[in-house]
């Protein structure tokens, strides 16, 4: 198609834009960050988004809303591939009578971002069919918008009344249809989230999820805190991917300051990140085996999970890799020979993991439960912007480590396994193969650790930048703005679980009740990560 972005290079972008929207769109190029900024009026937003997305390679990352004294600043962040890494669309609108056109019809991945913005900021997106009742549950009064700067984050709890007329928004209107409630307290050790499964008795026709039971307001409470404090928040809002998120945060802060971390720090960061990925994937495999009630396989995977927890615990001092990242590098150094030892242990774990894989592949009763169940097609994955092992199981070869290399990943040779089935078994296979690749990366990096410092000198600077990471569950984007006084002014977290929970209903619908927990286990998402 004409004017496709494929032909447009970074340099020719201003001309291409000027040709399409003469005089209406302002283009700024940030060469250091390979970022293109388009500033325009809100009326042009749907057009530009359509143009940006219909070209191959650009995907929606996040929507950042910042409050300035007299106006809102909305930043739609898209990411591409090397060449043009980031594309930001900036809107500035006055605070009265805000009416931004919704782009959820064009970029469906923006759906939940817009709903969250409406709930927490009060910005209305015209044309969005389902605003409201998203983050804040029904007992919050309508006019309270926590993310506005006027709202005090340290307000004490005030008792609120439940609305007796509140009804969940039901979609199935067949006679005899009802909603089966699941949660928020499940019948197992599980995170708190609520689902209403609309059904007429056998199959789940539609799922109505209710999340944000674990909403801790990380974005709000981080405003005004020093960076050292916010690192803790970035680590601990999702304890099972602590290192990845703190890495993204630190990268954003380092980007703002223009500081490049030492090579040794980068290499060790890769080792630690892959250790975390390895642990997460083994835990996810254990979860899948547990959901199908294959006890011995669950126990086998559980043994491996505990062993890697002990490995990371003895290696870094904390089983979940807390307290390791800081802007400029790591908080502690590691012995080279210890790193090699860890790589060996990881390789042995992978051997035993694949023995388990060989057994699972030939257990038909197990495969029956996950094969052809919970299917997400490639088109659906693209439309919803899914990320992580789930997207890779549906045929999307998206991995930020390859697409937007960070932290030295461009120097490491590894494969990104992709499956096309889109069902639970495909996701399981992706998990196994990615774990294998992680162990391989660890070995490579441990064998070639560069010498040097573990952290460079660091001075905070003011500004805003995007940090990203391929967390174990998928792509995570952290937008950080640091004020002049060195505190965090705005911290926007978009986690992979948030992106993927949006697409969960695609997999769960039109399957029987009994498949629901298994489909959830094959997705392996975290509510803590999604709710923040």
């Amino acid at each position, binding site marked *: 198609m004409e004017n496709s972005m494929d032909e447009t290079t970074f340099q020719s972008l201003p001309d291409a834009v000027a040709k399409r929207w003469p005089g209406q769109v302002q283009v700024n190029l940030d060469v250091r960050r390979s970022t293109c900024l388009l500033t325009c009026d809100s009326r042009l937003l749907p057009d530009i988004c359509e143009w940006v997305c219909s070209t191959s390679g650009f995907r929606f990352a996040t929507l950042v809303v910042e409050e300035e004294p007299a106006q809102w600043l909305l930043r739609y962040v898209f990411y591409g591939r090397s060449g043009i890494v980031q594309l930001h669309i900036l809107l500035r609108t006055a605070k009265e009578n805000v009416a931004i056109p919704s782009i959820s019809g064009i970029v469906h991945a923006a759906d939940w971002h817009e709903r969250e913005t409406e709930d927490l900021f009060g910005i209305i997106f015209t044309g969005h069919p389902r605003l409201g009742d998203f983050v804040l549950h029904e007992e919050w009064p309508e006019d309270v918008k926590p993310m506005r700067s006027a709202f005090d984050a340290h307000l004490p709890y005030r008792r609120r009344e439940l609305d007796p007329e509140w009804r969940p928004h039901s979609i199935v*209107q*067949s*006679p005899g249809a*009802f909603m089966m409630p*699941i949660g928020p307290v499940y019948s197992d050790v599980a995170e708190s989230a609520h689902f209403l499964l609309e059904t007429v*008795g056998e199959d789940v026709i539609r799922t109505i999820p209710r999340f944000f039971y674990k909403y801790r307001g990380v974005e709000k409470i981080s405003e005004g805190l020093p960076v050292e404090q916010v690192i803790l928040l970035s680590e601990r809002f999702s304890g099972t991917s602590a290192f990845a998120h703190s890495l993204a945060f630190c990268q954003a802060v380092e980007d703002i300051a223009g500081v490049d971390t030492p090579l040794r720090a980068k290499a060790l960061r890769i080792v630690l990140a892959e250790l975390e990925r390895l642990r997460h994937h083994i835990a996810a495999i254990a979860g899948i085996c547990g959901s199908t009630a294959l006890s011995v396989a669950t126990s086998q995977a559980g043994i491996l999970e505990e062993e890697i927890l002990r490995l990371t615990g003895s290696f870094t001092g904390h089983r979940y890799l807390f307290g390791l990242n800081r802007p400029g590098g790591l908080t502690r150094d590691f012995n080279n020979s210890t790193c090699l030892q860890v790589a060996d242990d990881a390789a042995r774990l992978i051997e035993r993991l694949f023995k388990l894989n060989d057994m699972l592949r030939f257990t038909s009763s197990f495969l029956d439960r996950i094969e052809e169940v919970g299917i997400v097609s490639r088109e659906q994955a693209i439309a919803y912007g899914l990320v992580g092992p789930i997207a890779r199981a549906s045929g999307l070869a998206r991995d930020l480590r390859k697409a937007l290399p960070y932290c030295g990943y461009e120097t490491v040779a590894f494969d990104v396994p992709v499956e096309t089935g889109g069902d639970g078994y495909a996701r399981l296979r992706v998990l196994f193969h990615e774990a294998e690749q992680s162990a391989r990366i660890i070995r490579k990096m441990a064998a070639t650790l560069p010498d040097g410092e573990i952290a460079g000198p660091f001075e905070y600077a003011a500004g805003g930048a995007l940090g990203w990471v391929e967390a174990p569950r998928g792509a995570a984007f952290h937008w950080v703005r640091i004020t002049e006084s060195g505190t965090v002014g705005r911290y926007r977290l978009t986690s992979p679980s948030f992106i993927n929970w949006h697409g969960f209903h695609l997999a769960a619908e039109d399957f029987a009740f009994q498949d629901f927990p298994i489909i959830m286990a094959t997705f392996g998402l975290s509510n803590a990560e999604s709710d923040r």
Partner: protein
Amino acid sequence: MFETNSLFILFLLLCGIGAAVSAVTPGRRNPTVLSWIASASAIAILLASGDTLFFGHPFQLRLWDLFSFGPLALRMDRLSALFVFVTALVYLPVSIYSAAYMKEYLGRYSLRSFGIYYHLLFASIVLLLVAADVVTFLFCWELMSILSYLLVNYKHEDEYNTQAGYLMLAMSEAGTIAAALALLLLAGTSGKLDFASLKAASTGMSEPVRWAVFLLSFFGFGVKVGLVPSNIWLPRAHPAATGNVSALLSGVILNLGLYGILRVNADMLPLNQVAPGIIVLIVGTISALVGILYATTENDMKKMLAHSSIENMGIMTAGLGAGFVFMTSGHPVLAGIAFTAALYHMTNHALYKALLFLGVGAVDASIGHRDMDRLGGLIKVMPWTAFFVLVGALCIAALPPFNGFVSEWLTLQTMLRSAVLSSKAVKIVFALCGAALALTAALAVTCFVKAFAMSFLGVSRSQSAKTAIEVKPFMRVPMGMLALCCLLLGILPTYVIPVLDEAITPLTHESVSNALVPPFFTITQGDAKFSDAFIGEFHDLGAQTGRGLLPGRGLVVLHQGTEKNPVVFAMSTSYSFVVLVLLLGGAFVVVRRVTKERTVSRRPAWDGGLRRLMPEMTYTATGFSNPVRVIFEAVFRPSTFDDRKETIAGHFRMAIKNGREQVHIVDRSVFLPIVKAIQWAASLLGRMHTGSVNIYAAYVLISLFIVLMIQGLMR
């Protein structure tokens, strides 16, 4: 006390007076007057028929002679007495119920005409049951059909009701014609019209005529019973009537068809081949299966009960069929047992179906609708009704110690007795039918668990269900009476079976009392009628324990198995009832003592931590029965299954609507093809109507030619 004859006359007088009084009483008082007089007439005929049934006093009344066709007479033998007794047993509580129930129709419909129809219907039913000649029988049968049509059509403002009534009348007339033909065929052979002469002349009939009589009477009376394929009027007509009339339709009028079948094929022209019995058995089983399948997936309570009536009638018919087969194969005792089971089931069904219909009528009166998907939680606001409906549901689901259990169990046991038959094909048919009946029993449990749970338990699903109030005592007392009767019939089978036995012995010529309920407690060794091994088994069965404690003869037993183990089955609901009461009572006492010091706290049901459990989040009746719908999809064949209409806006699914239309399997497989065939034939014939006068003239010429040819050839 009173003589049967005078009681009968009193009954007829009361019916007449009732009709007359209803015609003149103002609408407001009419229901009360109706209930008083109808109750009195019910008591009268109850005493009269009871006299004949229990004590054997015959009743005969010769009306007048009809030219040369023989006398018009009324005669009540024990079989008729049984049916009359059951009729009156149902009429009594229904009449009491009507006092309060009919008040809601004041001003909307004419209560006077209701009263007239009601009394006349009672009289016509009893008269046709005691009719002893063809004319009286057919006259009263027609009267009964028309009166029941008028009662079904009572709420004539609703077009659905008028259509249902019309369908019922049309099919009823078709059945009546067939039955009348059968009777007239019989009369033709004998030359006279009274039943006694018909019976006497039956021995000399030829095969084709026998078959004709059987088929005509079976399918003719089968329309009234509601057998496949003539059951399509039932699910429409029974819900269309008012609650008390539905109870009568299901509990009393359906039995009349059975009476007709029995009278013709067991009494007047006893079958002499196995094949007709097999046909009866198979038709009964199919009806039972079809009935319960549609009952399980039905959400309207009355429609569900109507389908369930089809099922129960099917079970009775299957029992009759088994009896016919045994009788014609030379096993009169087994035939007697089969007939006993069928008639026991008839009695039980009349009682518990009436109970259920009265209960559903109470719910309808209190709330205004009967849709299970919008009820729920009624047990909190209508505890008495809930209790009685629960008793009814337990009976119909055939759970001990209630009456449904005894009759269903006996029916299934007779199916098993097919081992004594010689023909392999017949045994296979019996095995299949027995399995199908067991399936219907299981589905019946599902159906009534759903019915009771969705309506009475759980959370109220609509505002009307939340604000319902309990019905008045006048409506609760009759339900209680019926529930008590159900319980008594369940725990005292050893009293009931000899009574039934006396009614059917004239048909099978062998008494089954000793085979089914031997004198357990009084028998001694050396009694000539029973073998030693048999008497020895009694000791194992606990004869010593129950002596003096249990009523009647103690156990229901079937013997004549092998020499060593003569007892084939034995059960005592009386025993189990006593044990049940002791266990429950004992458990209650123990629990009270053990938990005396413990604190008992009441909390709302655990709902997973929801903010509020809403009615939308509880199972609906449709959802509960969906597995049955899916498993038996071949039967239901919903024509637009899962017709999903989705409104999609981009990737947002706004609404999903699943439509489901289904056509009843009998309609689909029997009537629609017939209608299609007739239409096809009509369209073929329509081609003859070319419109050209020349062709019509040619038709006339050709037909004239053919007639002359035939005349010429016949010469």
